[in-house]
């Protein structure tokens, strides 16, 4: 098994006629993802060069025509919040938003409008979700992954690839890798995804890749010890040397008011029994060593 995406995923690409949307639609299809439709308002009925995927004006039409159950978003930041809401209105259960640069107020609105509903949002500002060998939704390079029993949750993009590549090189395969996104307001936090891995009989351990800013890592640590857990967690935190008050690339990677430092996060994780790698090259060994 795996979480979120697998061979049953029937995917819509929102923004499929754009540069990123069409490029990654092709990459996903090549990986074996079942891309059933694309959506670009005003481009319904057209074709994207070299892609055998119908294009619709609205998500609702795409869902009805192609029985889609998931959507990935590659539309500009100014239109992304509405794209998420459109998918939600059309009954899509999983929405993965790749777009970077969405205003905080837009994501706050989306979060509260959809909170408590039967929908999972991943991202924005994320590489997406991949269940190796089954389904890739997003922009990550598929071929660095390998099917296996370790989950990955990460606030980062290329740093995740780096870690996944090291795992694969060490012979450790992955069940599902989720990029949760680098923004301060994201659809799924670590604590939303860890229970899904806990419930997945084919995941034994999870690598959690955090960074400065916010308190998602601390919440994950608290979740881990709240009740006995089947899965084991190994963590890495980026930004040990980051100065306070500076946004380190990601909108969410900022130490503000003395809160969200890497040091505090590492201490909290270790206090909750989660080993933290001091550099990325240690992660495969730590994963092999965690008692399970």
């Amino acid at each position: 098994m795996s979480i979120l995406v697998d061979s049953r995923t029937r995917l819509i690409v929102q923004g499929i006629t754009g540069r990123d949307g069409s490029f990654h639609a092709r990459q996903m299809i090549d990986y074996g993802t079942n891309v059933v439709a694309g959506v670009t308002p005003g481009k319904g009925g057209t074709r994207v060069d070299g892609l055998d995927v119908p294009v619709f004006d609205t998500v609702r039409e795409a869902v009805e025509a192609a029985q889609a159950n998931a959507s990935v978003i590659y539309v500009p930041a100014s239109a992304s919040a509405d794209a998420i809401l459109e998918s939600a209105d059309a009954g899509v259960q999983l929405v993965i938003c790749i777009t970077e640069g969405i205003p905080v107020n837009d994501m706050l609105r989306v979060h509260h409008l959809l909170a408590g509903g039967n929908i999972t949002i991943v991202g924005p500002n994320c590489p997406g979700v991949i269940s190796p060998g089954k389904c890739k939704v997003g922009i990550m390079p598929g071929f660095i992954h390998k099917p296996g029993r370790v989950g990955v949750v990460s606030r980062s993009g290329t740093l995740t690839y780096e870690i996944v590549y090291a795992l694969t090189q060490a012979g450790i395969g992955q069940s599902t890798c989720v990029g949760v996104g680098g923004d301060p307001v994201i659809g799924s936090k670590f604590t939303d995804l860890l229970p899904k891995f806990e419930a997945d009989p084919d995941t034994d351990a999870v690598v959690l890749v955090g960074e400065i800013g916010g308190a998602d890592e601390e919440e994950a640590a608290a979740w881990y010890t709240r009740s006995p857990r089947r899965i084991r967690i190994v963590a890495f935190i980026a930004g040990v040397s980051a100065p306070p008050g500076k946004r380190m690339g990601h909108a969410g990677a900022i130490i503000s008011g003395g809160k969200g430092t890497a040091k505090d996060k590492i201490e909290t994780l270790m206090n909750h029994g989660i080993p933290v790698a001091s550099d990325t090259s240690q992660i495969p060994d730590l994963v092999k060593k965690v008692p399970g």
Partner: protein
Amino acid sequence: MKIHEYQARSLFESAGIPVARAGIAQTPSEARAVAEKLGVPVAVKAQVHVGGRGKAGGVKLANTPSEVETAAREILGMKIKGSTVRTVLVMEKVDIAQELYLGMVFDRDHRGYTVIASSAGGIDIEEVSAKTPEKIHRVFVHPVQGFSPHQAREVAFRLGVPKKASLEIARTLVLLHRVFVQTDATLAEINPYVVRPDETTVAIDAKMNFDDNALFRQKSVESMRDTGEEEPLEVEAKNADLAYVHLGGDIGIIGNGAGLVMTTLDVVTAAGGKPANFLDIGGSSSPEKVRRAMEIVLKEPGLRVIFINVFGGITRCDDVANGLVQVFKKMNVPSPIVIRMTGTNVDQGMKILNDSGLNLKTFPTMQAAAKEAARLAKP
């Protein structure tokens, strides 16, 4: 994005919040003219983005027009934590019965906003929070449900000020919320907000920060940007669509992806090196982006080494290496370059770099590359 006090003050004034009468000046004689219009005494306040200007001598009281001129002459051109004062705000002196703190912030942990009010105004709110937390009153503001007048009154009545003042404060909080949401702010702060002896109220300070991601729809806010207050290289990088942070060390850092660059800084620091900067060229790694990145990093004063750390994913390592070689052959790079690369086709990529005839030092691990960069940076 940050703006100056006088700009935040005018946003508050347009929103209907009572603000002390004031005007701005760029020269001592302009300051005098503003004071003559307002009537003395006045406060002359340095306009800089950094905090702590009072302690640095950037705020002075003046009782006569000629004192205003003298105060402005002293403050204009003053350096406060690296910022040069180019504008002063000349503000009427307000009679004070009580100083309060009123603010609203984006509350990341609760995915909403928090309105904060305190009876301990005029001092740093984080200090109040640490020493006398009982003096701070907070209310969560739901992003969809909004902020109702009754919620504002509930906070205002807890401040222990006369009822007339409480009602004015509640009104100010509602207006503060309105301007906050309308401008895509992440922080709006009035410290202090003053209760006068006659129980009326007025803002004698103003501060606002904004969400950079929302500037595309906040043109009038963006027009208030003062690039003179920002790191010049950060401004240049922003114009080239690159994420850059000036850090002040001697090892230039370039990488693809924010998390990877942050990790590179950590590894370099652990190896005893001092990063000059954070520079993310984005997930892909096109030669054009690398060239622009190099041009900016090379302007870092005191640069001794450049460390490039790239993960080759969809853009494979051999393509990245070809791009790097192409860029370096056209550029005259005076500093040694350390490159660490991993990912798809890493061996081919390394071979391209090593066979290029350029003076590049390549390493397969971040740790080894960081150690070498730190060693090369030693004088």
